């Protein structure tokens, strides 16, 4: 791909993201006009003197920020997991990372720990436990690329079943978990968003400095080791960081499926497989994709709102089938 086309795509993606952010803050059950939005901004941060300002600061801004953060985190997490497991069908939702985070959050709610940091920490712990379980299983049995996915599906299923069981046994946790399982942003609050947001930004910044390592590990374990990479250590770092991103996103967005699958695929097709460009592009496209999906989910059937997770499953399910049908065997020399 020539550099001009690449720049054009990056610029287009950034503009689309900015437009989606603008629309997301203005559109909804109550519309905020552009003039009102300017007025809110002029009033200053946190000034809620007008109804539009209250809607903006208490509902639209946290929701839009949540969409942007979760979209970027899940998309980058997906790209990293695909690279590390050298399997383009892997994603945090499919191999059980989201479900691990979901189970940990459900347990947290069952014990009455609702603080933002507790939820974010639990989600990260659950996500990393799930990803390590899948990676260790794959390593132990010398699993093929397909087996890793099947192992992930099994882990996913067990973790979701455990979440369901806790929800039934502890109804309070169940109430919290019902929205959580579908995935959505209707109840996002700053208290929950802030800790997770910090974790996501830190995770993204660290990953953007490790793109060379990601490219090398994507060449396969033997080649990477031969090039001088301590593969086991680096793989653990990557899986930890991708679990951090996915867990933090799941802690406030719930189980949003398929973002980590769809976006890296589209990004690879549009730009490149070189992680230095792929990861930032995934972050931009993922943020825009989730923001647009959330906007559609709350405006398509207005005044009713459907959880964005349902809309994403409608898009993601067929996309996954499409990938399976079009999947070519792994290239090897």
């Amino acid at each position: 791909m020539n550099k001009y086309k690449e720049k054009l795509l990056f610029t287009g993606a950034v503009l689309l993201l900015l437009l989606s952010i603008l629309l997301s803050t203005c559109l909804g059950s109550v519309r905020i006009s552009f003039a009102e939005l300017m007025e809110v901004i002029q009033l200053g941060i946190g000034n809620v003197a007008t109804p539009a300002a209250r809607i903006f600061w208490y509902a639209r801004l946290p929701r839009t920020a949540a969409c942007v953060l979760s979209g970027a985190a899940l998309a980058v997490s997906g790209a990293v997991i695909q690279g590390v497991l050298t399997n383009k069908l892997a994603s945090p939702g499919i191999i059980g990372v989201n479900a691990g985070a979901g189970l940990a959050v459900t347990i947290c709610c069952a014990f009455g720990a609702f603080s933002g940091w507790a939820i974010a920490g639990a989600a990260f712990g659950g996500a990393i436990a799930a990803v390590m379980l899948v990676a260790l299983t794959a390593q132990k049995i010398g699993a093929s690329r397909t087996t890793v996915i099947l192992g992930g599906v099994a882990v996913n299923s067990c973790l979701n079943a455990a979440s369901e069981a806790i929800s039934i046994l502890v109804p309070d946790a169940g109430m919290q978990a019902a929205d959580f399982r579908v995935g959505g942003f209707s109840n996002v609050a700053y208290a929950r968003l802030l800790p997770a947001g910090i974790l996501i930004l830190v995770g993204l910044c660290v990953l953007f400095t490790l793109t060379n390592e990601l490219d090398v590990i994507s060449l396969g374990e033997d080649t990477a080791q031969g090039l001088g990479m301590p593969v086991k250590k680096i793989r653990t770092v990557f899986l930890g960081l991708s679990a951090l991103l996915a867990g933090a996103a799941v802690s406030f967005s719930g189980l949003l499926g398929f973002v980590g699958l769809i976006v890296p695929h589209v990004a690879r097709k549009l730009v490149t497989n070189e992680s230095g460009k792929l990861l930032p592009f995934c972050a931009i496209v993922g943020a825009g994709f989730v923001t647009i999906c959330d906007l559609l989910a709350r405006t398509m059937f207005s005044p009713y709102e459907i959880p964005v997770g349902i809309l994403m499953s409608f898009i993601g399910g067929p996309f996954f089938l499409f990938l399976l049908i079009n999947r070519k065997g792994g290239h090897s020399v």
Partner: protein
Amino acid sequence: MIELKNVCAGYDGKTVLHDANVSFEPGKITVLVGPNGCGKSTLLKSLVRINPHSSGEILIGGVSIQKMDQKQLARNVAYLAQNKKAPDISVMKMVLHGRFAHLSYPRKYRQKDIEIAKNALKWAGMEAESEKIVSKLSGGMQQKVYIAMALAQDADTILMDEPTTYLDVVHQLRLMEMARQLAKAGKAVVMVLHDLTQALQIADQVVVLKEGKIIAQGTSDEIYESGSLQRAFGVEVERVHTKSGWHYLCSLLET
């Protein structure tokens, strides 16, 4: 020079290679031959710690590899795996990965790295393809890209595990030529090969393995004369002289 002294190695708690004693010298091509599962790949992998040795000693220039971290090891030994991926990245980017062991965090390429990568591409005859995508090249070209990547690694020893697999005859012959040039440039080249004619024609030193043990090592003539190939493979080996050198013909032993 690399020396293996009483090296045992394997994987998953299983010892595959037993008491290996052999050395690989600069400027020479060593070829490992033997039936499937005899420990050839394990021997190569033990040198770069993919299958770490469980006992014995591996020395590079007299220093034990246990005293080296993975990056130091990679600066001394380049390894071309048997199963290699053909990624959707440019040839130049791929060859630059060869500089991985020479960079420190956050791994920004210096002008020197780019120059070395360009020279490696030139050496492998892949200069014109530097902007092409690796996965879109033919198998032979991809193999050259991997060799260029190994050259960019700037190591004194190059290990190649079955490098001719999936290559047509022309690319196989070109690869052998390349191995010879590498040795001429002072590198120690160690290859696992299945084609006995190819192996015995190219090798300065042949190492024959059977059931995890080195049963013979020496020049091609010495190995042929010793009958170790018959013992290792359980086949009859005969050679005939042609204008391209000795050709080795195998046939099943009569029972």
